[in-house]
């Protein structure tokens, strides 16, 4: 791979970290990472004047994220094709895991508003797992570009 392309990918990874940081800050500010914080954000709390979300409000919120998650994962993961990780079974597993985690992250709010409180844990877990996977993939790319 040309040096200029490597440089471009390195900057893309930096942007990705910035995107993750902003996502964490936004989640922490709007929802919070506690069980009650997530539950109240979706099912509401009259004492705290937090309105309950309905399915159309959630759909409106996740609509751009459906496209963005897919595009972002595709762009980030397709760089792996240019590295030594291309034909590894672990890469296939990583691709499946990242897409499934993204789907879980997007879909869990629907289950939360239906009263399945267990999905609050899944929402928090999938959020952090998704970010962790992005960081891990970024690390794989960084290592491949810098050290190989």
């Amino acid at each position, binding site marked *: 791979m040309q040096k200029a392309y490597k440089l471009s990918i390195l*900057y893309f990874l930096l*942007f990705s970290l910035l995107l993750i940081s902003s996502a964490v800050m936004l989640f922490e500010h709007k929802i919070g990472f506690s069980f009650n914080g997530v539950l109240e954000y979706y099912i509401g709390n009259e004492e705290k004047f937090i309105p309950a979300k309905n399915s159309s409000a959630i759909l409106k919120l996740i609509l751009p994220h459906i496209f963005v998650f897919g595009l972002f994962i595709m762009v980030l993961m397709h760089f792996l094709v240019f590295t030594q990780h291309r034909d590894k079974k672990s890469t296939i597993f990583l691709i499946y895991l990242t897409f499934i985690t993204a789907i879980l992250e997007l879909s869990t709010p629907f289950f939360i508003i239906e009263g399945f409180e267990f999905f609050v844990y899944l929402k928090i877990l999938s959020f952090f797992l998704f970010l962790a996977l992005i960081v891990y993939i970024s690390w794989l790319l960084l290592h491949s570009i810098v050290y190989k």
Partner: protein
Amino acid sequence: MRFTLINNIQKDSAMSLILKGFLTFIFVYLAADILVMKSGFGISAESVNITLFGDEENYIDPITESSFLEFWHTQIFFIMMILLTLNAIFIRVASSARILLTNLLMISSILSLVSLPLAFYISATFVNIFIATFFIWHGVAAYMIIYSFWKLNAKSV
């Protein structure tokens, strides 16, 4: 990004046309971005300060933290995707100063994005860095678009 693998883009008339169309759209996006920023967030130190911190004399409320974070989050995604694709085309067609301009474009845009929360949470002086780097990366991106367009019209790339 198949165009990165084609030996001579100029000879591939379809791919060349697609890239020129795409470059036109990025150029329009950049112009529209400046206009939207001007009417919304502000592109001068004074207007950005008013957006971020409000203006008591004119009864203008500061932007809420939630709105600010949403704006910042969206900006990061759009800028990263636009600059990645633009830079990939530029690297493919440019013969010199590729590394220099890539560094200038990316560093200025990242500085622009990082200076926003620093201005909001730490000090208003970062607004000046935001304004300067905002115009630098828009200028460099515009140059890359025009240069790439010109190179795609050249006899060979």
